[in-house]
């Protein structure tokens, strides 16, 4: 019988921007079991809600993650608005949709860069992140921040985007689109990328469903699920279909994100053509009483926000199930049987965000 070794992977590892630990049980070069451990930087934010006023907690929710910050804020506001039955102005919903899609663009570019870095394709990594900077410029122009938007509030949004600025964003995205295509073509067509990702870390459709996987990871396995189709914000009025691939390997996960990048640009364009005028927020009075689960499609997949209010300004319970948390079982499963050299790529293509998970 081949001798088994345990290789500790993380919490500090060159391929991991954030801490997660895996005990990789190996036989020669093959991983036979992966045992994850998290909680190194757990912040207990779900508990913090009990001593932080519900209106102020938007700022905390936004800081759950630096990459999906806007969508965390939006999910929290949406959950509270449902409990309190607040009618958010139309324009605010359109603005949320625009910011959510711009956030998706920068997140997918960030991921593509990290993937290139993990493969050792440094020039591709630098080009991808160079392009991401331009998207961050757009975010800064419209919100004042590059990472934390601070634009969502309960009852609407804090800032408007003027017609001129919106025109400029569309023009800028049009200018950037050929550059995005040039870089993403490398991810899709380059021999070395395909060699590193094709057939690696395969999750079939059945496993994707049974393991409860979400986001691009699930769609790469052919699972046609995208929480935007539930109908929050102004997605029901936009023309789009979930991007799916069928091979379920690391390459498919990469292709899904590339295609979603361009889908998001198209959605921003559609929003710009349809956004109405009007107020951007309503005054909120009273305290939440009741409970609601809201679901939002973050760049990494479906996030669940659960809030329960008891009529005071402090929520009784606040719960976030992040997409990464839902994808950890898939990571455990898919690492079984893989080669040790493929571990970084497999983990990265599932795109774990430990900051979200350690909420």
């Amino acid at each position, binding site marked *: 019988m081949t001798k088994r070794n345990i290789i500790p992977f993380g919490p500090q590892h060159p391929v991991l921007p954030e801490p997660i630990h895996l005990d990789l049980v190996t036989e020669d070069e093959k991983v036979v079991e992966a045992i*994850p451990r998290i*909680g190194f930087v757990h912040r207990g934010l779900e508990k913090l809600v009990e*001593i932080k006023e519900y209106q102020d907690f938007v700022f905390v929710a936004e800081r759950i993650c630096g990459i999906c910050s806007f969508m965390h804020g939006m999910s929290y506001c949406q959950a509270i608005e449902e409990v309190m039955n607040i009618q958010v102005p139309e324009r605010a919903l359109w603005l949320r949709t625009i910011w959510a899609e711009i956030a998706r663009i920068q997140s997918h570019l960030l991921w593509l860069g990290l993937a290139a870095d993990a493969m050792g394709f440094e020039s591709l990594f630098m080009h991808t992140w160079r392009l991401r900077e331009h998207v961050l410029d757009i975010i800064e122009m419209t919100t004042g921040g590059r990472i934390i938007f601070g634009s969502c509030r309960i009852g609407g949004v804090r800032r408007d985007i003027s017609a001129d600025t919106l025109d400029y964003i569309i023009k800028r995205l049009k200018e950037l689109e050929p550059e995005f295509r040039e870089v993403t073509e490398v991810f899709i067509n380059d021999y070395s990328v395909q060699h590193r990702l094709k057939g690696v870390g395969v999750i079939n459709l059945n496993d994707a469903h*049974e393991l409860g996987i979400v986001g691009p990871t699930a769609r790469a396995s052919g699972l046609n699920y995208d929480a935007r189709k539930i109908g929050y914000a102004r997605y029901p009025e936009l023309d789009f279909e979930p991007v799916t691939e069928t091979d379920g390997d690391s390459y498919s996960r990469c292709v899904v994100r590339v295609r979603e990048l361009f889908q998001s640009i198209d959605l921003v364009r559609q929003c710009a053509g349809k956004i109405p005028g009007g107020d951007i927020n309503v005054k909120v009075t009273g305290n939440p009483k009741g409970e609601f689960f809201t679901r939002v499609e973050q760049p990494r997949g479906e996030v669940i926000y659960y809030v329960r209010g008891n009529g005071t300004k402090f929520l009784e319970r606040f719960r976030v199930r992040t997409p990464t948390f839902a994808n950890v079982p898939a990571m455990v499963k898919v690492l079984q049987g893989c080669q040790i050299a493929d571990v970084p790529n497999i983990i990265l293509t599932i795109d774990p965000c430990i900051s979200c998970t350690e909420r």
Partner: protein
Amino acid sequence: MIENQELITVDETTLSSKVYGFFSEGYRLVQIHCTSVDAGFELNYSFDREYKFTNIRLVVDRETEVQSVSGIYWNAFLYENEISDLFGVKIKNIVLDYHGKFYQTAAKAPFGKPEQEERKPEEES
């Protein structure tokens, strides 16, 4: 309302059969979460099929051992370990049981106590 959400209340004896029913019908396990309530713990199991969102709710006292559903939905092991580590809920027969070592917490079951027992709201401090 963004979506209609169904809530079904179960007890310990019917939990497994109800969850198995969802599994048989092709539902995806979306999440499991726990809330510390006066009566003990409230466990919520959420399922989705074709964007239809349904919840199962189970309330148990603090000493009751809850049957794991990870034998039905394998991915439940992660949620159950989380609930066990953070709330101190006793869950038996988890397919991959970390025995309290999934999360690195300084205090045992930090979320287990009812709210505001140890710290007071900011306005009162």
